[in-house]
């Protein structure tokens, strides 16, 4: 088991003047799961893209199974038995599972006509062999993210890949799906495959990987045996300082109820009820965490509160004022700020500068505009103060388009902006998705600080760890209602929550 599947030596990669990778080595033994760990923007994806032929390094050599390899494009990589599942899926949404898998390596008759029967059969065989169940006839846009990921893995296996690269495969998965994925990876290893996995979740690394390569700011930091280190040790290697994986917080001091939902019913576009009479109450000075499996009504709940979709029944009250079915603007003005789940879609305008993004909600305030003319000096000063206070990097980035910031820093800006609104209720939906450990620490700390200032906080997350770490009160959402509300104390365990989340009674 000691022969080397992948060896990358002295890799340098520049984007313009920016050095993304500097003399990085990577050695992956065949038949193992090898994890790569690093902050956002450390260069992990870049390194893997080089291995897959998407980028050309300025310097460095690559050896595959001991032989020097020249990988200039993905075709070369595919021929060498390398397959990659990208951080952002590379699927054609309106084609079927089968079509996506065979694309570029189609099974055809001699006239170039695709033989769908044979293709489907081949895929079925593959998926049975590795327990990667998919519906070959379904369209990608109709299947769940977990299933899409299986399609991505099947794509590589179908091409006969022996070396699989998985770039943040778990960021979009539910806890259940993550467990399944780890299972699948182990099955693949048993079958003699080699896997390189990028993830920010230390727990997953501990559960699956044998070795871990740590990268920081484009430089190789260490290559370690995972079992030799604790999660905390791994985290501090990655960030370069000691980090708290669990947030320090004092006990909550909840006051009066400030926000409540009564019997809320929301229907989707087909007319099916997605929320079936949901109730909840949040007090000042408490973090209310909504735990649940994806798709049980979290999205509908947030959209109803923020008036992005219509409530067919029920009341939503803040400070005893009903806000359901008004406008997003009214919601904002009533004292509710929201950190949305998908920052690219909902929270930011990527080509606007950081300073404009920082006032998107508040440009109406006299402070920023007079007689509908914008006051750019005030806006600039404001953005500078946010950047300083929230340590948004790089410094002096207020004029750069926010697209150029890393995900963590984008998220920091959103949080800064929403906190600045000084809301009575702060809603945070998946606020740490895809962030590195340092950034997560910051987000959690901020939420607790706001709580301590007497705000009410509604935290919606699919990560049980996050819910259990941060919230004071936990509500379990299942099938459109809150089925269980409980104080977050030592008695709460992952198993218990999981039981309720799956619809168990009591």
């Amino acid at each position, binding site marked *: 088991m000691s022969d080397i599947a992948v060896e990358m030596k002295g890799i340098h990669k520049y984007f313009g003047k920016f050095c993304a990778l500097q003399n990085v080595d990577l050695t992956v033994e065949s038949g193992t799961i090898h994890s790569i760990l690093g902050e956002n923007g450390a260069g992990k994806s870049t390194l893997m893209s080089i291995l897959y032929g998407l980028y050309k390094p300025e310097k460095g050599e690559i050896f595959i199974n001991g032989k020097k390899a020249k990988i200039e494009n993905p075709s070369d990589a595919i021929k060498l038995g390398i397959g990659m599942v990208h951080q952002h899926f590379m699927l054609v949404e309106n084609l079927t599972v089968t*079509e996506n898998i065979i694309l*570029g390596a189609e099974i055809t008759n001699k006239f170039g006509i695709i033989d769908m029967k044979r293709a489907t059969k081949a895929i079925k065989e593959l998926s049975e062999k590795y327990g990667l169940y998919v519906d070959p006839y379904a369209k990608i846009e109709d299947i769940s993210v977990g299933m899409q990921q299986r399609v991505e893995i099947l794509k590589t296996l179908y091409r006969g890949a022996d070396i699989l690269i998985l770039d943040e495969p778990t960021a979009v998965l539910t806890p259940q799906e993550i467990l399944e994925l780890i299972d699948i990876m182990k099955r693949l290893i048993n079958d003699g495959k080699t896997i390189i996995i990028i993830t920010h979740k230390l727990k997953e690394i501990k559960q699956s990987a044998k070795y871990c390569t740590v990268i920081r700011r484009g430089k190789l930091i260490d290559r370690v045996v995972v079992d030799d280190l604790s999660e905390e040790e791994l985290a501090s290697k990655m960030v370069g300082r000691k980090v708290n994986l669990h947030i320090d917080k004092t006990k909550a001091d909840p006051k009066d109820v400030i926000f409540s939902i009564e019997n809320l019913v929301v229907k989707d576009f087909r007319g099916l009820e997605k929320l079936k009479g949901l109730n909840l109450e949040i007090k000042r000075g408490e973090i209310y965490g909504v735990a649940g499996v994806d798709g049980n009504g979290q999205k509908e709940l947030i959209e109803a509160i923020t008036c992005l979709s219509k409530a067919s029944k029920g009341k939503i009250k803040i400070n005893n004022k009903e806000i359901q079915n008004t406008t997003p603007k009214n919601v904002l003005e009533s004292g509710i700020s929201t950190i949305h789940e998908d920052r690219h879609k909902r929270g930011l305008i990527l080509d606007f500068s950081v300073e404009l993004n920082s006032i998107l909600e508040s440009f109406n305030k006299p402070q920023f505009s007079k007689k509908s003319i914008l006051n750019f000096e005030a806006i600039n000063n404001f953005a500078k103060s946010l950047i300083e206070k929230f340590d948004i990097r790089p410094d002096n980035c207020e004029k750069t388009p926010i697209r150029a910031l890393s995900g963590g820093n984008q998220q920091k800006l959103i949080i800064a902006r929403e906190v600045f609104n000084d809301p009575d209720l702060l809603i945070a939906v998946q606020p740490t998705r895809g962030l590195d450990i340092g950034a997560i620490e910051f987000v959690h700390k901020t939420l607790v600080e706001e709580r301590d200032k007497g705000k009410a906080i509604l935290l919606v997350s699919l990560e049980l760890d996050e819910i259990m770490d941060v919230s004071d009160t936990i509500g379990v959402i299942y099938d459109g209602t809150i089925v269980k509300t409980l104080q977050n104390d030592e008695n709460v365990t992952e198993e218990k929550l999981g039981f309720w989340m799956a619809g168990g009674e009591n």
Partner: protein
Amino acid sequence: MNNILLSINITLMYSAPLILAALGGIISERSGVVNIGLEGMMTIGALVGAVIAYYTQNPWLGFICAGLAGCALAFLHAIASIKFKADQTISGLAMNFIGPGLSLFICKALFGGTNTSPTVTNKIPKILSWMQNPNKNIWTSNLNVDSTILIALLLTFAMWYFLYKTKLGLRVISVGENPKAAATLGINVHKVRYFCVLASGFLAGIGGASCSLAIISVFSPTVISGKGFIALAAVIFGKWTPQGALGACLLFGFAQSLVVLLGGNESIIPSQFLSMLPYILTIIVLVLFVGKSVGPKASGEPF
């Protein structure tokens, strides 16, 4: 009865060039390259078709050369929008200015400064041209449509088969939907797009030639006058599918045949009003039935 036949005849006559050009629009847009330049490519096709058929007396040679001329113009569009990643709308618009300008220039250079070509004596035959005298009988006379309509129908089927049943078709669609994904699977996005844009030019070119070699038999600067834009509308209207565009073109041709058959001295509807009918009909059907657009995701995005 006779009127029905006539209406079919006119519908088919109107649709043939539209269908051909629309197929061109489909293959280009399906690969992710918007082609507003259909009009210009049709015009140059109409010219080259007429010129070659005039000199060689062979309409089919003219037809093929028209396709190649469309290709040549499409190649410019491909270079601009694929290689130089220029905005596809503007590059297409430029084709619509260059195509007619160039056509007029060549026409004047060849034919002593006139802006219409001489009449082509050997035009593209009609489908019943093997019969003794199809015009004698009013039935056969109305069924005796241009062979270009047959070609258009065959090519529609071929395009459908190509897009949905063949390897290359699957690649075309994936390149238009998600070029990055296609590239990670080792598909050469640029090559596929070049191929599709050139094919688009060829189809628009023969569409143009089917005006100057079948509907009438000369080239004149007005012979296309808007057909390329209607074909473009048919592409969208038909939701970027060959069968849909075929339907849209036929609907449009049918509306035109209604205009012809309803108009006349005794007609109660003013003729200005009638002549807007096809467009109004089209937009009504559009708003009522089509709803949200469903174009290829990466259409218009350089890669």
